[in-house]
């Protein structure tokens, strides 16, 4: 089912949560809505599900106006962050719920419901839990049941709200791979909301980065990583360092900065900002550089360095411990970023897609 969203806006009281969303989701696509909390991503998901109504805009799914359909008629599989399993029903009854509540004329025969549930229990790798109650399950198991319950109705669209948000890191990774497999088997158009960029990029075909009720960028993991469309996206991608620079001919210049590795950008000359990630900066000893190593810690695999530069500004640099150069606290170093995004205060020179990266 293709989903086409145009001009969607939504306010809660005085706060505008969505400020004009335009988005097209292809049939069978696995799409991530990525953004910090408060960016409107969950509201967008709830509007698609029919749990919330927009103030304006259109939502068309497979040629049908979904804003004219109540949630019950949309055939949505919605997986909530905290699963919301029915506590008084067994796993089997939870998964079968969407089938057993259908009007008699549309309801499958009990044997058929049982078979469907058995299939799902196998797909979810939890056939041994069929007769347990939700209170007796771990977080990861609950998540599987919640997904099974959503898949049982063979949803036109599968929507997941922070599907792994409440799980610990190891289970997250497992479930992520497994969700990808489930998606490949069922082929249903899937949208999930997350604030974790790693999760979004690893799982999704395309990622929609949202900020402040708007779509900041849509693209594949590589596209967004290589060409962040704005300072917001760059920062959200982990570029926690912002250096004031002077742009000249698409190159960044600043004392103690060696921007050779960065590709030129199509931004106007003049003052601008360079956004860098702590883990993509190489250091080279340079007595003339204003950047001084003021702190050196280790977490075992990486060295965590703090450099103090002009105007007492501080930046973090993470280097792999193995192969790190000899670093002495108090030494002067030149920053040689391997990745960065530059934005001129005056904006881009041309509307053409800017290139801001090196390998």
């Amino acid at each position, binding site marked *: 089912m293709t989903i086409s969203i145009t001009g969607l806006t939504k306010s809660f009281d005085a706060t505008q949560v969505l400020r004009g969303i335009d988005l097209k989701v292809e049939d069978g696509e696995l799409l991530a809505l990525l953004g910090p909390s408060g960016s409107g991503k969950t509201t967008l998901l709830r509007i698609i*599900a*029919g*749990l919330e109504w927009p103030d304006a805009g259109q939502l068309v799914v497979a040629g049908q106006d979904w804003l004219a359909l*109540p*949630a*019950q*008629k*949309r*055939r*949505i*599989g*919605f997986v*909530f962050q*905290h699963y*919301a*399993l*029915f*506590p*008084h029903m067994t796993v089997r009854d939870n998964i079968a*719920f*969407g089938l057993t*509540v*259908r009007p008699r004329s549309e309801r499958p025969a009990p044997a058929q419901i049982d078979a469907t549930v058995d299939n799902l229990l196998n797909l979810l790798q939890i056939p041994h839990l069929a007769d347990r*109650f*939700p*209170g*007796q399950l771990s977080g990861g198991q609950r998540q599987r049941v919640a997904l099974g*319950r*959503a898949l049982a*109705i063979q949803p036109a669209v599968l929507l997941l709200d922070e599907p792994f948000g409440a799980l610990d890191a190891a289970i997250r990774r497992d479930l992520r791979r497994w969700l990808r497999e489930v998606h490949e088997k069922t082929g249903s158009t899937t949208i999930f909301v997350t604030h974790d960029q790693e999760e979004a990029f690893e799982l999704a075909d395309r990622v929609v980065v949202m900020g402040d009720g708007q779509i900041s960028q849509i693209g594949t993991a590589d596209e967004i990583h290589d060409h962040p469309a704005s300072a917001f996206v760059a920062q959200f991608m982990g570029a926690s360092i912002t250096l004031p620079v002077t742009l000249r001919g698409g190159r960044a210049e600043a004392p103690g900065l060696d921007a050779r590795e960065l590709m030129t950008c199509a931004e106007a000359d003049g003052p601008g900002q360079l956004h860098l990630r702590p883990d993509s900066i190489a250091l080279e000893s340079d007595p003339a550089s204003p950047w001084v190593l003021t702190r050196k810690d280790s977490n075992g695999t990486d060295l965590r360095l703090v450099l103090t530069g002009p105007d007492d500004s501080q930046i973090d640099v993470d280097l792999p411990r193995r192969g790190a150069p000899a670093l002495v606290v108090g030494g002067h170093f030149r920053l040689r970023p391997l990745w960065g995004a530059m934005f001129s205060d005056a904006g881009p020179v041309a509307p053409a897609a800017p290139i801001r990266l090196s390998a």
Partner: protein
Amino acid sequence: MSDASLITPDARPGRPRKFRAATAEAAPARLALIGIALTGVAILILAPLATVFAEALADGWAAALASLTKPDARSAIQLTLLITAIALPLNAAFGVAAAWLITKFDFRGKAFLITLIDLPFSVSPVVAGLCIVLLFGANSLIGGWLVAHGLPIVFAIPGIVLATVFVTFPFVARELIPVMIEQGRTEEEVALTLGASGWRVFWTVTLPNIRWALLYGALLCTARAMGEFGAVAVVSGKIRGKTATMPITIEMLYNEYLSVAAFSMAAALTALALITLTLKTALELRHADQLAAIRRH
């Protein structure tokens, strides 16, 4: 700090050390607290309860039973059970509807509605009874019309039902609101996306989630409905054998110095309350595992 300073005199060799939980009190404090609680329960609850039954049986079982089987007494018992049987489902339905409205929807005047639900708790039952008399009495506009059409409210069963429903109105809603607020709307939303209609969501998701709170509310409501005196005293007219409920009958018998009859009736009323309580405990024991599972969730 040296290790020596950590060793207490209790740690002498050959003598097992005793520990107690960090939150437990010392033995004297514990005994004092238990003593106060038990004395309180004995004086305030057990003694009156025992007195009621002792007084009722002062002339033996036969006399007590005989006083309860008199036509007026039987009528009072039947009336109380009837009123309770009508008031309970009404208030359960009102309570669920009100709690649903308050917890699942946002609207203007919500706080006002919650205050209004609590009103019967703060208004004296006698005042409530008087209001019903003023509103539905034979001299009022509505009451006059109703009497003319053969449906008197005051000094009749409908009036007693009204008074009882008014007084017991908050019990179910008050039990349900906090439970439903805590549960939120997510489970209902899941059910909706899975295609369930509003009714089905209520029966299959909402009601099972609130059934224990509903049961507690209903039990409280039952106990209060059976025992209500003030409001019923005003609206019933205390017509013996017709509109006198058990509490009213007890008062009338007592005022007539028929102490065995009065206390027999009181014992019967108490027994009804005890049955209600036993029912609740039995249900809790029987569904203990389920209750625990839901609470853990």
